[in-house]
């Protein structure tokens, strides 16, 4: 290792261990946060079942992936999970519509307006969903990624650039970022330009006036669940491809997702995306050990002896929590103008 200041290698190190992981983690959170935002805007409650619903969607992906690999129905180089996502989305949609029919619709019919009732109901759904996933797949972690693991590996990158520090682009990272961009673009196009999307915004904006304009509330709710199911399944599958699947891990994702939504301004889709990247970069930047990075940048005499890690990785959920509490104390409407969560 050289003892002179080496900015290029420092940057390569950062890209490999901070920027790429945070970008893909942020994209996964953003999709989950958009699902929460949609439920909040249209159905008017904070969906505590989001994390476990992601586990449910991923469960279907895992089961189908296993089935496809067993039959030998795979395409070389492409993760099988990617091929089965559309079917998994349909499965999750059916599950969510069933839950809506069994649980949430009742509270809409009796016109309970409080967020807290929906939250309580969704906590019930959260436990049921988590239970179903553990019953079917078990609680132990599993990996379901097949195909080519890297778009380019550290070794290939080093050979190509001649740098001491390599950058690897994992297939899962590449897929996550690409799919997230496409999905978000589709969602915004749908909400801004299509008649159905506009009707959803109208319903969210002023429910009574939407009814007076002839917008069918049941249809709006159904389409919302379909979009939420797609976002949820894809977010879950991408997270699982990237970091592996574990029911408990998915359950805990609720915290960074809620932090993203609230930081960005609850009810604001753009805010949810911004919030997701703020949370993901905070988590990765604060739990990264900077020793090697500083060695590249500082003269020999100043080289650190410790790991220079601000917070241990086991505390990463505390970061979301601190962000959440800080935002609620200082700017409850979030970075972009959102709604203050009160029981309205």
């Amino acid at each position, binding site marked *: 290792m050289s003892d002179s200041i080496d900015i290029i290698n420092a940057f390569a190190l950062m890209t490999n261990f901070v920027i790429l992981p945070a970008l893909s983690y942020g994209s996964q959170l953003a999709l989950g946060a958009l699902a929460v935002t949609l439920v909040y805007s249209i159905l008017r409650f904070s969906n505590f079942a989001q994390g476990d619903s992601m586990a449910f969607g991923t469960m279907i992906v895992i089961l189908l992936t296993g089935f496809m690999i067993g039959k030998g129905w795979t395409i070389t180089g492409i993760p099988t999970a990617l091929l089965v996502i559309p079917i998994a989305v349909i499965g999750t949609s059916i599950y969510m519509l069933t839950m809506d029919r069994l649980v949430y619709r009742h509270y809409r019919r009796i016109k309970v307006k409080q967020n807290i009732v929906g939250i309580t109901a969704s906590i019930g759904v959260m436990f049921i969903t988590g239970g179903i996933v553990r019953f079917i797949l078990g609680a132990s972690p599993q990996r379901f990624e097949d195909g080519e693991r890297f778009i380019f590996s550290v070794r290939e990158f080093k050979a190509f650039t001649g740098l001491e520090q390599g950058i690897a682009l994992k297939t899962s990272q590449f897929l996550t970022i690409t799919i997230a961009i496409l999905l978000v673009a589709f969602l915004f196009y749908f909400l801004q330009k299509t008649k159905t999307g*506009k009707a959803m915004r109208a319903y969210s*904006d002023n429910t*009574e*006036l939407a009814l*007076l*304009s*002839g*917008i*069918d509330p049941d249809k709006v709710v159904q389409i919302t669940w379909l979009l939420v199911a797609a976002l949820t399944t894809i977010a879950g599958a991408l997270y699982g491809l990237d970091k592996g699947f574990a029911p408990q891990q998915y359950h805990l994702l609720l915290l960074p997702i809620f932090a993203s939504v609230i930081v960005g301004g609850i009810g604001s889709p753009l805010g949810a995306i911004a919030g997701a990247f703020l949370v993901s970069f905070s988590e990765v930047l604060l739990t990264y050990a900077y020793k090697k990075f500083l060695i590249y940048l500082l003269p020999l005499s100043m080289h650190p002896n410790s790991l220079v890690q601000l917070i241990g990785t086991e505390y990463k959920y505390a970061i979301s929590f601190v962000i959440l509490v800080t935002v609620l104390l200082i700017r409850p409407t979030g970075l972009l103008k959102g709604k203050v969560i009160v029981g309205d």
Partner: protein
Amino acid sequence: MAYLEGTNLVAAYGVVPILHECSVEVEKGELAVIVGPNGAGKSTVMRVLLGMLEATAGEVKLDGQDISMLSTQERISLGLAFVPQNKNVFPSMTVEENLEMGGFLRLDDINKTIEEVYSLFPILYEKRKQLAEELSGGQRQQVAFGRAMMTQPSVMLLDEPTAGVSPIVMDEIFSNILDVRNAGMAVLMVEQNAQQALNIADKGYVLVSGRNEHTGTGSELINDPEVRKKFLGG
């Protein structure tokens, strides 16, 4: 038999009775105004006519057809349109999107109706790309009005269209309402500004505690000494 009739309507919010056999009717090309003190049930009449609140007795007829059992949406598609007093626009949508949403149920080309709304309210054309929440009170009222016109209704129900606007804007809104009436629509409105409203009304209802207290043409009511004393400030 009038075009829209509410006959002997009885309604309550929970256990609190609001309307006691109250009747209103309005003909096409006619402007009827409901006035009366706070809590008289003026807005409730409208909610019952629209099916937003279920009447426990009485019936609502549109063009001779009993519509009492129909949902709000079905009544809207039959030609009723409503401009609520508050929250009568989609605040985070543009003026144009507000109008589009008004025409949500229509399967034909709505652009022509949008043009008509713009020619009635030229300011809305200028602000068509702006969010409704960025408009002034009077402009917002025009958006609300325009949104309701998008279904090409035969009956327009207005709940206090001049609440919270300046006197100049009030005159403007009243003249818009007269335009709509002259175009052949049946207009029924609830108003706080009783004097001004009765001045332009073809027919007036004075509602007290959910009952028809006085009924007559606008000028009859204005010239009725009892109505003047009790409701128009002498």
